């Protein structure tokens, strides 16, 4: 009976393994998640920039440990393409090294293509060249991998032994398909003598002799290209290579394996990386360098023109200035400008072609994590269902930060005072005291020893536990869904009372951010700066032209207040935001992590929190649990701040039914409790009772009628959760 290894169970270990080997973070995704075309056929491992696409499950071996080892082998083979420069290929350099290639004119397809495609077109049957080249490159990568990572050899040999009998039977080698199969078997470690004995064409022995070159420990991709030319010459000399008039000699033949007259059965663990597109991306790097050089040249032109102008100012003639080489001609400047613009357009077009071919969606700079989701309709977890991308929140402009600070300045002192009254929490054992709840046996032994010696003993032999310092870590998880862009609607009754009683003091009691409140000394509110922030206009407002205050404004200002207050307590805390769209794209923004100091950068990250898309709350809570687990505090608390029910485009079978999202969020909150993390949900949605009571116990949530009361509510919640 076989025991399968599943990708979602091994995703984190594989991501860390890949990072350790590759020196960069790799997202681990299943093969089915590759949405690009790129001539890739489904069900084969591959890699893209920063992504490894691996099988959803592996059950080739009966032991799960061997199946896990196969995951590592596949991942390592993919990473080794990058490590051993599989895409660092330049056709001009290859031609200069290889006489058979240089002997032919450089093929022109008239279409944008990779240098690999150009290489294949040097031969009458490009599809055969592509088959051979991939086989040789696979062999080269294997050889270098086994040389640099010798520990993988036993796993490699185990899978190679399993792979060979599973391939199509090879009796007598009489034609080209059998010949390529024999060469591939040799590349998997089958004895050359055995294979040559089966060969009736006489080509296998010279082919293997040539292919040995790619097994050298220093072989590079150009070695594979050179070996390809030699192997093709062997086939050609024996009349085994197809003629130019044969099938699959056109442009399509390079791009599509399907037009080739026969297919080479792939080696499962080598996969099928989109080499041609990745080489085009590597070439983009060269183009960008060229673009940077051109820009430098243009700057030199400008500097030259400036120098010439200066010469003019010194009454030198144009001829003298030109003779000194300081003034570039107008024609030169125009030519450089045109070349630079052309290259920039070329880079842009190539980037979008590559992105489309490789199915790249939004660029995520941070790592990703897979999480299960609770499927309430079936009463089971969907394993590895959601992918959370973790990103650092960006900085903001100084004026936005200043506007935010100005908004919160009048309220800092009050919130801080409340926090200073919080009692210490953690216990610490105090030794060497004259009375206490326990005896300190070390001290007691010393006491008796000294007494027996006739010395004057220290009689402080007691110990007790005291509450000395707080030991609380808190994560604030903020909903950044699109609805937080909504303007704040003041409660009708209060708005009416405000109309009836325009006394500023009564407004201040209701609205902690009311700008009419007298600011404390040293905290003068800069009205201009406030108006400069599009999101911080006063709803209570003196300035009717200012944009209305939004939910997100109050959320982030509340967090600034909380952060400033928590600094006085020295409690570690983190501030995260979440949003996203779809189960594969849950976004988790880190504005401040536990280890980050509170700094101007933190303020910038908070000011940069913006309304985004949906509210898939379950995976965001699960990711916060992961982060909190790493916090070394006795008490761990998660406070979720939202403005509505959990919702996403595919959060449950029926988009209009929010029950699925509510149930998943409830389950995630239970998981947090099970992990020893106290949770609390604060919502500014007035209909929040409807779903919050299904998500958590009554004592674990709060619905705020007036959003402006959020900072006050957060302070109370924090005090209640951590104060005793």
């Amino acid at each position: 009976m076989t025991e399968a290894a599943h990708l979602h169970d091994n995703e984190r270990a594989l991501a860390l393994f890949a990072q350790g080997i590759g020196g960069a973070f790799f997202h681990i995704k299943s093969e089915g998640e590759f949405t690009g075309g790129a001539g890739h056929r489904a069900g084969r491992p591959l890699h893209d920039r920063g992504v490894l696409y691996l099988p959803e499950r592996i059950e080739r071996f009966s032991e799960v440990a061997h199946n896990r080892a196969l995951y590592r082998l596949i991942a390592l083979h993919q990473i080794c393409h990058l490590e051993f420069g599989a895409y660092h290929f330049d056709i001009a350099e290859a031609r200069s090294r290889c006489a058979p290639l240089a002997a032919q004119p450089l093929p022109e397809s008239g279409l944008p293509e990779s240098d690999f495609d150009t290489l294949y077109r040097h031969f009458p049957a490009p599809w055969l060249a592509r088959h051979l080249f991939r086989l040789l490159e696979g062999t080269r990568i294997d050889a270098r991998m086994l040389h640099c990572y010798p520990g993988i050899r036993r796993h490699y040999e185990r899978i190679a032994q399993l792979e060979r009998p599973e391939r199509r039977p090879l009796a007598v080698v009489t034609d080209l398909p059998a010949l390529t199969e024999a060469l591939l078997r040799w590349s998997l470690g089958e004895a050359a003598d055995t294979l040559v004995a089966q060969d009736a064409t006489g080509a296998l022995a010279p082919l293997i002799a040539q292919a040995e070159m790619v097994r050298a420990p220093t072989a590079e991709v150009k070695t594979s290209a050179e070996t390809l030319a030699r192997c093709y010459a062997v086939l050609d000399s024996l009349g085994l290579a197809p003629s130019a008039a044969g099938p699959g000699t056109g442009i399509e033949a390079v791009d599509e394996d399907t037009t080739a007259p026969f297919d080479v059965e792939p080696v499962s663990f080598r996969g099928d990386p989109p080499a041609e597109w990745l080489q085009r991306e590597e070439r983009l790097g060269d183009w960008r360098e060229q673009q940077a050089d051109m820009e430098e040249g243009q700057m030199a032109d400008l500097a030259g023109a400036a120098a010439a102008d200066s010469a003019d100012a010194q009454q030198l003639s144009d001829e003298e200035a030109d003779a000194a080489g300081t003034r570039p001609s107008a024609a030169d400047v125009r030519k450089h400008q045109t070349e630079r613009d052309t290259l920039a357009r070329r880079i842009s077009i190539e980037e979008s072609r590559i992105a489309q071919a490789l199915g790249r969606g939004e660029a995520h700079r941070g790592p990703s994590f897979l999480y299960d989701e609770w499927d309430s309709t079936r009463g089971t977890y969907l394993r590895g269902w959601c992918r959370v991308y973790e990103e650092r929140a960006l900085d903001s402009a100084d004026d936005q930060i200043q506007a935010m600070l100005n908004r919160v300045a009048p309220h800092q002192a009050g919130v801080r005072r409340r926090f200073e009254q919080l009692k210490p929490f953690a216990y610490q054992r105090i030794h060497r005291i004259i009375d206490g709840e326990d005896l300190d046996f070390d001290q007691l032994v010393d006491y008796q020893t000294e007494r027996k010696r006739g010395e004057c003993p220290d009689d402080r032999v007691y110990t007790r536990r005291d509450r000395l310092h707080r030991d609380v870590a808190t994560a604030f998880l903020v909903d950044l869904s699109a609805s937080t862009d909504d303007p704040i609607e003041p409660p009708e009754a209060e708005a009416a009372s405000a109309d009836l009683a325009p006394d500023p003091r009564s407004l201040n009691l209701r609205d902690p951010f009311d700008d009419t409140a007298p600011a404390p000394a040293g905290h003068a509110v800069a009205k201009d700066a406030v108006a400069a922030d599009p999101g911080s206009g006063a709803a209570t407002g003196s300035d009717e032209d200012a944009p209305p205050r939004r939910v997100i404004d109050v959320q982030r200002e509340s967090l600034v207040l909380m952060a400033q207050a928590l600094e006085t307590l020295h409690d570690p805390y983190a501030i995260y935001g979440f949003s996203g769209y779809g189960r594969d794209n849950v976004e988790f923004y880190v504005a401040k992590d536990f280890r980050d100091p509170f700094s101007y950068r933190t303020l910038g990250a908070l000011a940069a929190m913006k309304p985004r898309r949906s509210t898939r709350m379950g995976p965001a809570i699960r990711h916060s649990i992961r982060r909190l687990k790493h916090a070394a505090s006795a008490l761990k608390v998660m406070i979720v701040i939202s403005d509505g029910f959990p919702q996403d485009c595919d959060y449950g079978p029926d988009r209009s039914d929010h029950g699925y999202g509510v149930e998943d969020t409830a389950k995630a909150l239970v998981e947090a409790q099970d992990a020893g993390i106290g949770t609390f949900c604060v919502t500014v949605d007035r209909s929040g009772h409807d779903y919050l009571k299904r998500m958590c116990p009554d004592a674990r949530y709060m619905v705020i009628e007036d959003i402006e009361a959020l900072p006050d509510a957060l302070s109370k919640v924090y005090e209640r959760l951590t104060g005793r």
Partner: protein
Amino acid sequence: MVNCPSYPEAENPGARAAALEEGVSTRLLIYTGQLIAGGIAPRRACEIALVHAVSDDVTAQQAVADIVDVILP
């Protein structure tokens, strides 16, 4: 180890924090070397002085063990 300068993730603090954030200190490497010099088999020495010492996280330990597994003959 692959040098991937074109990969922005390598510079991303979030990426670093999420993974092998502690790294393997020189001290641990020296301990490992001392064990090997003292006659302990390299794999066993790495297991004792690196894998179990590098992190409390079982997944991180597994990943380091996997890296050791592919590097050592």
